[in-house]
Every structure is written in C-alpha cells, then in structure tokens.
C-alpha cells in the first residue's frame, strides 16, 4: 500500500523524474572526462553522498585488473560517466525501508491520488536544507530530524537527479554543482541528440502488460513472494533457536560446574554440532541423498521410485522427470502446477509433497509414499466392486477432488490411476499435473480433430457382456494405457475434449465414469479401438445405457436404481450435471455415507503391508511380466526422447522456484538437557 502511495506521489510531482537516456556504449565508455570531474568535484563542492563518485582512473582497465586478482575469471566493470538523471524513477524502491514514514503519508493522502507531499522533487537547491548538511557531514544527522523520511529521501535521491533535465533548460543545475556541469559536458551530445524521453514511470508498454497478465508470470511472482516469506521465517527461526541452544548449553555446563579444559572440550563439541547443522542448511538436496528401494511407477515423462532419504530415513515416492522431455511436450507448466498444489496441501485426501528439487537434467518430486497401489491396479485385480464398496470409494474420491477444488484447481483428467490407496485403506488423490487453468492447446486440437473425424457410422453398439469382456481383455493386453504420454480420453468430459469452457463439474463427469466402472467393470465409453472410444465419446448420450445382464449368474451385476441414478446425474450434459459436493452428498446413492467422518470408517480393504517400504501393491519393475505391461509407455517415451531437441540448458528459467523444502530442518540434539521446543518467534522481537 505504501509503496503504491509513494509511487502515485511521485507520479504527481510537478517535475516528474526523467527516464535515463538510452545507453550509447561508445559514449558511455569514453573515459576522458573522468579525471576532470574528479578534480572539479573535490575543489568546488564536496561530493554529495548521493552522488555516484567518478572512478579515479580514467580507463576501464582498472576494473578488470582488480577483478582479475581474486581467483576466477577476470571481469570488467566498465564505468561510464554518470547520466543526467540516474535515479529518477527509482525513489520508490526505498518505500519498503520507511514503513512508518510512509504510513504518515498514507494517512494524509488518499491512495491512488497524486499528492504533492514529496518535496524531494523540488529542484531548486535553496529550498533544500539537506544539501547544506551534505557538504558538512553527509547523512549523519538525518536520524535526528523530525522529517526523517524526507531528509533521507533527499540524501538518497538527489533532487538534481529528479529533474527533468531538458537540454539546456536547467540552469540551476550548473549553479549548484559543478559536477553536474561536467557530466553534462560528457553527455551533452547524447542528451542533445536524444532529449530525455517522457517519464515512463509505471506506464507499461503493451508487451509488458501482456507479459504481466500471463498466468506464468504471476505464478512466478507468487512463488517468489512465498519463497522469501518462507526463507526469512526459516532464517530468523533458525537464529533464534540457535541462540536458545547456546544459552541452554551455557546454563547446563554452569549447573554441572564444567570448567577449564572440560568446558573447552564440550564447547568445541557443541560448536562442531552447530557447524554441521549450518553446513547442512546450504547442502542442496540431490538425488544421491535418497536410496532408491524399488521402482513403483512408470509414466510418459518419468519414473516413480520408492526411496528413503538417507539422513532422516523418511520413506517417499520419488518422481523423477526429464526436463528435456517435459519442455518438449510442453508439460513444464503442468509439473509446476503439480508442485504448487502439492506444496499447498495439508489434507489427508491429497498426497503430500515432502521435497522438490532439481539437477541439470531432471526435476524431482519427493512425495509421501502411498503404499496401497492405485485404483487401476485395484480394478484390474477386482473387476467389479460391490455396490457398498463402490459407494465408499466413490465418496472418498469426491472428498479428495473437493479438496483440489477448494485449492482452486480443476483436474479435468481424472482416472483411476490418480487415486491411491494408503496404508490404512483410504483414498488419496495424486498426480495433479493437468490441473492447470489451460490444457496444452496442441492436445486440445488433436482431441477436437479426433472427435471431428469420427463418423456416425463408426458407432458400434455392443452388449454389456461383450463390452465388459472386451474391456477386460484390453486391460490384460495393455494394463498401463493411461500412463503413456498421450493418455486416454476415456474419463474426460466432452466439454474438455472439445476445448470448451468447463467448470469444477468437469471432474464430476470423470468421477461418474469411474463410479460406472466400479459398478460395471468397464468405463462407460471404452471401445475396442481408440477410434471406437472417440466415436462413443462423441455420441455419449446414445452410448450411455444402463448395463443389463440377463444371464442368471450375472444378475448380481445389475445396478440398483439409486446407483444408476447417481451415474446419470454425473455423466450428464454440463447444465444437468451435479456440480457441488452437497448435491452429491444428497444423492440417494450416497445417503448411507457419513461424508464428514469418512476417514474414520473402516475401508473395505486395508493393504497388508510388510513394513513401510512394501511395494507389493505396485507392479514389479524387476519382473519381466510386469514390465511387459509398460512396453507401450516405454515406446512412447523413446519416441519423445528421439525428437527431443530442447536440452536442459534452455530450461533454467522454467524451473526457477521449483525447489521446495529445506534439506535439513532438524536441529541438533543439545549436549544435555531438554530439546529446546520454544516458539522461535518470541525471542526474535
């Protein structure tokens, strides 16, 4: 707020700050005037502290020589003569430093209204008492002055710099500072040829505004804000805790009367432990800090491993993705969104992110390991679920998706693979990679094309039994279809496939399809071939039929009326579809379910786990039989890799702000006595 006020204040100044003239390298590097200005400034007026001093040596070499002394590459500081108005529009970067003073300003000025409170910009020196003190004792007395803000601002942003500096227009400049004159000499040609452009302050160019409006730009800014808050919170907390540890150490040794060499030994040991903690604070998290136990997943963009972090022994699912592949497939944004969602998560319904880190080639997400496997595996094994089990799992899925919606995201590509069974048998949603504001436009185009290519005669009507059998055999042939790069459209709502607008209810369509599959053993629109599936999706209202079994042994598979009612309230045109959790909860199908205490209920199935690193519910990536399921996934991955051209290098800026979680948040055990548990906040102030 205050910075805004200050900004508007500035922009309302009678003499707006001028923009620096564009650099003309040949001019700015000319060094001949430097010595001259030096001598002049030292004889006439002592340099104001706000002035940028002119280098003593005429050549830019000096910068190079000095820079070359200490180690690494030599580097050049090319110093050019000061411009007429260097800091004109920079005054507001001081805003943060003067919260109280700005508060006063804010009190007298309506935000957003240009106010003439800032005397800084008054160009004429006689009105500026601080310039006098500059000559005596620069800046030292400002603190005592009543008008601290003004004074300091003057000391910082020299009023002379804030002048418009029209060529030849400001005689006053030469009057009070010979230094200024010299600079004008140096810059005379430049200034004359290129009059100072009108102040650009806060007026963004169209291309800038376009960039500023980009979700990606905003995302980076938000991530940076949170990052710095987090950093300073952590840093000050660390310092405070450290101080307490030292006090505890001192009290403890005093109580035990430890003195002399004993004390020195204990102190050295204590300091050594602190040093270890400090060193770990700067140690970057690397994949080497994890021990890979087993691979538990394989997707188009990377692999998922069960891993254990070396120092803390935490077990996690480590998702490893190649930067090059992600860039190639335009999926960087999706991974970043996934990271953002995961870092925001504090609910048992969504998988938690423990760490995010990267190296040159890969990005990694270390997530909570959910040992019970995903619903694809569960469905592959169980076929059809009992209605009460389907009710339970579907209800839990709605809760998970609702958490995602509460965070403001729509998944849009929900499928059984996205739901995991945790160690207690309850459901967790994972894999939010697609939950962005926008699907990859290429993908939408391709989906639209596929829908358009479908001809009506492609529509094949099959009996329920046939479809179920067909789907089972397809699943046997290609059990991990959805993991491949392209993914399957089976559960996607038509409005998403067509690239139309959609709302949170898009995810309810997908959940309706999953519920259908729970109850029937196959998803509602799966066809024998991808073309058939597309045809079914295009004609979904004709294809969606209540499955009917007439063979006596199959009668138990027939859906109850309330179950079918739930399905068609979800798999429906957007305007008829349920779109809020309360509506779902009040469906007759779900009334037996206590939604608020779902996680306290006994689930139908609890994984039998042999320790926290049991991977029995995942495919074995050492078994040839299991690996054969992934043949298609691997093939598509190789295809992507083959056309990969964007290497890791281009990606630096893509991945800024990805890293999450400190390597070490542990504190060392104090030598003796209780572990300090106090609030770090209280001692800092």
């Amino acid at each position, binding site marked *: 707020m205050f*910075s805004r006020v200050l900004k508007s204040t500035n922009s309302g100044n009678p003499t707006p700050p001028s923009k*620096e003239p564009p*650099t003309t*390298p040949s001019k700015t*590097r000319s060094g001949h005037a430097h010595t001259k200005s030096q001598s002049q400034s030292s004889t006439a007026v002592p340099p104001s502290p706000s002035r*940028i001093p002119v280098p003593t040596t005429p050549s830019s070499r000096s910068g190079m020589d000095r820079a070359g002394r*200490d*180690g690494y*590459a030599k*580097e*050049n*500081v*090319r*110093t*050019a003569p000061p*411009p007429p108005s*260097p800091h004109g*529009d920079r005054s*507001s*970067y001081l*805003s943060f*430093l003067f919260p109280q003073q700005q508060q006063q300003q804010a009190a007298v000025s309506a935000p957003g209204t240009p106010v003439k409170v800032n005397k800084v910009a008054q160009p004429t020196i006689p009105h500026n008492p601080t310039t006098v003190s500059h000559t005596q004792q620069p*800046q030292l007395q400002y603190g005592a002055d009543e008008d601290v803000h003004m004074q*300091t601002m003057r000391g*910082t942003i*020299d009023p002379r710099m804030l002048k418009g500096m029209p060529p030849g227009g400001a005689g006053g400049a030469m009057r009070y500072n010979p230094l200024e004159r010299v600079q004008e000499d140096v810059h005379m040609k430049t200034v004359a040829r290129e009059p100072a452009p009108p102040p650009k302050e806060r007026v963004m160019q169209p291309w800038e505004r376009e960039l500023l409006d980009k*979700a990606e*730009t*905003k*995302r*980076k*800014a*938000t*991530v940076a*804000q*949170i*990052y*710095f*808050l987090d950093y*300073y*919170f952590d*840093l000050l907390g660390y310092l405070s805790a*450290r*101080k307490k540890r*030292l006090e505890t150490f001192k009290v403890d040794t005093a109580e035990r009367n430890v003195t002399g060499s004993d004390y020195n030994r204990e102190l050295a040991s204590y300091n050594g432990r*602190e040093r270890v903690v*400090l*060193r770990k*604070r*700067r*140690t*970057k998290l690397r994949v080497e800090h994890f021990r890979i136990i087993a691979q538990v997943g394989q997707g188009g963009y990377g692999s998922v491993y069960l891993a254990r972090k070396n120092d803390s022994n935490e077990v996690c699912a480590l998702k490893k993705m190649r930067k090059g592949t992600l860039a190639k497939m335009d999926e960087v944004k999706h991974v970043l*969104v996934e990271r*953002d969602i995961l870092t*925001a998560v504090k609910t048992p319904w969504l998988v938690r992110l423990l760490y995010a880190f990267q190296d040159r080639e890969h990005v990694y997400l270390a997530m909570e390991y959910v040992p019970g496997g995903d619903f694809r595996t569960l469905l592959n094994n169980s076929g059809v679920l009992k209605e009460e089990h389907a009710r339970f799992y579907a209800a839990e899925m709605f809760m998970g998706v609702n958490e995602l919606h509460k965070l403001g995201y729509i998944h849009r590509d929900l499928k059984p693979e996205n739901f995991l069974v945790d160690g207690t048998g309850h459901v967790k949603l994972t894999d939010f990679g697609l939950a*962005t*504001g926008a699907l990859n436009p290429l993908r939408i185009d391709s989906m639209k094309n596929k829908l358009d290519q479908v001809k009506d005669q492609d529509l094949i009507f099959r009996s329920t039994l046939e479809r179920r059998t067909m789907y089972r055999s397809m699943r046997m042939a290609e059990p991990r279809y959805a993991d491949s790069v392209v993914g399957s459209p089976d559960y996607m709502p038509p409005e998403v496939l067509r690239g139309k607008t959609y709302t949170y209810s898009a995810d309810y369509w997908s959940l309706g399809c999953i519920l259908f599959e729970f109850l029937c053993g196959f998803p509602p629109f799966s066809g024998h071939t991808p073309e058939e599936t597309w045809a079914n999706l295009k004609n979904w209202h004709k294809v969606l039929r209540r499955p009917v079994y007439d063979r006596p042994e199959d009668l138990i598979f027939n859906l109850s009326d309330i179950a079918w009612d739930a399905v068609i309230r979800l798999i429906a045109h957007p305007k008829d579809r349920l779109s809020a959790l309360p509506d779902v909860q009040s469906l007759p199908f779900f009334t037996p379910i206590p939604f608020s205490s779902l996680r306290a209920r006994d689930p139908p199935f609890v994984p039998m786990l042999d320790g926290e690193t049991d991977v029995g519910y995942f495919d074995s990536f050492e078994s040839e039989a299991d690996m054969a399921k992934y043949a298609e996934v691997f093939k598509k991955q190789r295809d992507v890799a083959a056309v990969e051209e964007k290497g890791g290098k281009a990606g*630096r800026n893509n991945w*800024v702000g990805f890293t999450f979680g400190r390597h070490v948040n542990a504190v060392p055990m104090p030598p003796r006595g209780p572990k300090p548990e106090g609030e770090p906040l209280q001692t*800092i102030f």
Partner: protein
Amino acid sequence: MSTLFNLKNGPSRTFKPKKVAEGTKQWQLKQYAQATLGSGNLRTAVQLPEGEDVQEWIAVHVVDFFNHVNMLYGTISEFCTPTECPVMNAGPKYEFHWDDGDGQRRAAQLSAPAYVEALMTWAQTILDDEKHFPQKIGVKFPPTFMATAKTILRRLFRVYAHIYHSHFDQICALGIEAHLNTNYRHFLLFVDEFKLLSEKDLVPLEDFNNTILQETGK
C-alpha cells in the same frame, strides 16, 4: 500495510490460489514478516553467531543469495530480453562484460539475459563443486575460499543492480518490490558486515546502499 506482502492473484478463472486464510502457515508468515522485516533485525541476523566459523557462515549465505538472485531474476526474466537489455548494465553508467576465465578472449559484451545466464551457470558450477564449497561434514574450505566467495557475491550484486536499474517498474507491477528490497538489504548488510565487497564494487547502487546502512544504524 495490508498489501505490503500481498499475494497477487490472477484473474484466471480456474487458477485461483486461495486468499491467505487466517491461521494458515502462509498467513502466519505474512504477519511475521510484516512485524519483523524492515526493522533492525536483519542487521543482527547477519552477524556471526557466537562460536561459528566465519567461512561456514559466509558459505551458507553465498548459497542463499545465489538462490535469491535466481528467484528474483526469474520473476522478471521474461522482460529481460536481448532486445530490451542488449548490454548487461546497471543503468547507463555501468556496463558489465563477461569473461569466462579461459584467458583466450577479451571480456565479452553480452546482453543482460546472456550475461545472467552465464553468471548463474558459472556460480552454480562452483557452488556444486566440493572443492570450493565442501558439503561433506568435516571437510575444510580451501585457502581460496574467501576470494571465491567474494567473486560470486560481486557478480551476484550486478544482477541486483541490473534489476534495480532496468526492471524495477516490472518488479513493482508484479508486487514483489518489498521482497526485493528486503532481500537486497539483507545482501548488503551481509557483505558490509564482513567487508566482502568494496565500495567500488557497490557503486552502481551507492545511494541506496548509503540509505540502508545509515538507516540500520551503521
């Protein structure tokens, strides 16, 4: 005060980070940061903790500042293009040329994005190098460590200076000027505390620096 650390939400329909709800960690952070940063605490925060090794203390800060610069520059990197910033500079008075240290060529005049990319890649390599920044417990720093640290800090400073001189409007438009200011202040107080950069190194932001140092009761 309320917008000092305001989190900007996009108008996008589907991408809506929630408002910072009271009681959440983010809310807590915000309250805390508002109450703490901007007062004199950073001056205390940079001081060497009792009993700590000064090189260890500097090393952790060099890594932190590298990450901070990476984060800050990342927010405006889209604006810092070879067309907009054809030369790496801190205002028209100071140009920075890149010398990759191979002794073959003269320092090259690079565009700001190319310079920053070269700088960050170079710094990253050193920070990841066990010889320069040992990460293993008990391994000592090399005798060249202080020189290395100073060189990295001096170069990181140039990115701060470039951001202030060429991209501050955009930083403001993105609502992260307070974060930049706090972070730069932290940087300056740190290099001042241990005299890691010379006045000359810091000249491109001299006025600002003087204000900070004076304001924090140097």
